[in-house]
């Protein structure tokens, strides 16, 4: 456990100046900021629709959720999984990590959990900033009645679902990035997979839930899975279970690949 903790601290220390870490912070700030700016700038047009507070919240928060769920999250996860492993490939430091008195499982798990943590930070910031910027908009333009409805539960559930739906892609990409040090293979496969996943989910192919790259799109589908807003949404749907199952399988597979890895 101590090995895992120090490895995790080291992961943070190594990547704290890198793009993968800062993207987890800058992406939500930028996207939520742009959406809020759009709402500020186009307030007259938006307010003309006379939406009730709940509808306004729905419209406003789905901007970030849709962009994030459909495109940014899969691409960010692919890039981040690549980045966390590439730091060792690029600097030829696997040999250092494995010649230190640390369990290989701890080194591996720390990398994996660090990646999970970055997705969590990114999505938590998306959720928090969506909420904060809405109230800021209300302060600047009081006609935006974001104060009359509390979407915290729904926002939390949607972002939690989005987070869980990303675990399949993350673990799959993590294994690819572990095996290959080059940029093209894991990133190329990831991009093709993401596009194929989005298409499969959007055409409602019945086996789409088996494709990790379809999970965020499937998870963001509203409608039939949704109960009343007060009850929240079903989080543990078929694609989420599949995503978690992939995470377990790829996590174990990745460890065996790493444990047998000879540093030539």
């Amino acid at each position: 456990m101590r090995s895992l903790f120090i490895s995790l601290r080291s992961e943070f220390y190594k990547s704290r100046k890198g793009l993968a870490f800062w993207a987890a912070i800058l992406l939500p700030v930028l996207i939520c900021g742009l959406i809020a700016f759009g709402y500020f700038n186009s307030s007259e047009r938006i307010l003309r629709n006379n939406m009730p507070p709940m509808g306004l919240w729905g419209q406003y928060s789905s901007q970030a959720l849709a962009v994030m769920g459909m495109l940014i999250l899969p691409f960010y996860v692919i890039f981040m999984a690549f980045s966390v492993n590439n730091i060792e490939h690029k600097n030829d430091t696997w040999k250092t990590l494995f010649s230190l008195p640390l369990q290989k499982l701890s080194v591996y798990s720390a990398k994996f959990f660090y990646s999970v943590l970055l997705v969590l930070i990114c999505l938590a910031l998306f959720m928090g900033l969506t909420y904060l910027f809405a109230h800021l908009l209300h302060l600047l333009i009081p006609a935006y009645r974001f104060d009359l409805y509390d979407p915290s539960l729904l926002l939390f559930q949607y972002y939690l679902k989005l987070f869980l739906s990303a675990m399949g892609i993350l673990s799959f990409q993590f294994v690819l990035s572990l095996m290959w040090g080059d940029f093209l293979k894991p990133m190329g496969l990831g991009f093709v997979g993401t596009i194929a996943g989005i298409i499969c989910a959007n055409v409602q192919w019945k086996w789409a839930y088996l494709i990790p790259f379809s999970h965020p799109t499937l998870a963001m589908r509203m409608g039939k899975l949704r109960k009343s807003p007060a009850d929240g949404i079903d989080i543990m749907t078929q694609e989420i279970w599949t995503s978690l199952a992939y995470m377990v399988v790829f996590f174990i597979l990745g460890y065996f690949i790493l444990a047998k890895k000879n540093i030539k």
Partner: protein
Amino acid sequence: MTLAIETRGLNYHFGQQQVVNELSLQVPKGSIYGFLGPNGAGKTTTIKILLNLLQAPREKVFIFGKDLAEHRIESLRRLGSLVEQPAIYGHMSGMENLHNRCLLLGISKARAAEMLALVGLTDAARKKAGKYSLGMKQRLGIALALLSDPELLLLDEPTNGLDPNGIIEIRNLLIRLATERGKTILVSSHLLAEIERTATHVGIINKGKLLFQGTIADLQQLSQPVVAIDTDDPVRAQTLLHAAGYPAETEGAQIRIPFQTPADHAQANKLLVEAGIAVHALQPLRKDLEHLFLDITKNN
């Protein structure tokens, strides 16, 4: 004799290619063991096996008497290493690289500054390691290896890329670590002269096979220097030297006799000159690695 490293009939293959062949290293505790061999001889592979980066079967590699395969963590705790090019994070400064290693080893960050001073990198502590010269990277690699104050150091060609001053500093550092702090150091090199200056023990490897293992004195016996003599009449010069008891051999147009003392080869020179042979040059030569290998192989 307590052994810091022992391998027993170690073999290793990369696919069909055998890179380590029945290797039985014996590195005494407290020694500086020069691991000598040409490029591609299997030195780095052996060092990687000793670090468990390449996995060897059980009962083949022992670190301080314990089977590495069964006591990996315990063995690595007593080890510091520098393998091939130093593995450092280019986007971090030298100091940050050391701090990161302190984190991983659970040691005080104060030690980082101490190590940088030891390898002469204090002024470049805040510079990105990716921008370091090869020599500076090598020094940082040595600092990283020494950070945990390990009992055993495995250094793969540590003077690669260093300037002559740097080489002397590292050489002196190794000697100090072994003599003052009782460290055991295995240092690989393809330069015989480099090993002769630092090592107390030597192992010579070629094509994965250990051709020689012993003390530096044993090696010096093998790498007897010679005196090359250029004359206007090599055939008569050889006959004369033979008659005087010198085991003279010809190599091309040169005569070679074993180097004993300067007075001894002055005597040989006098003998030739008095016999009317013009001596153009007398030059003491040490056997280079290639010739030493040939000798050792011949003896084996």
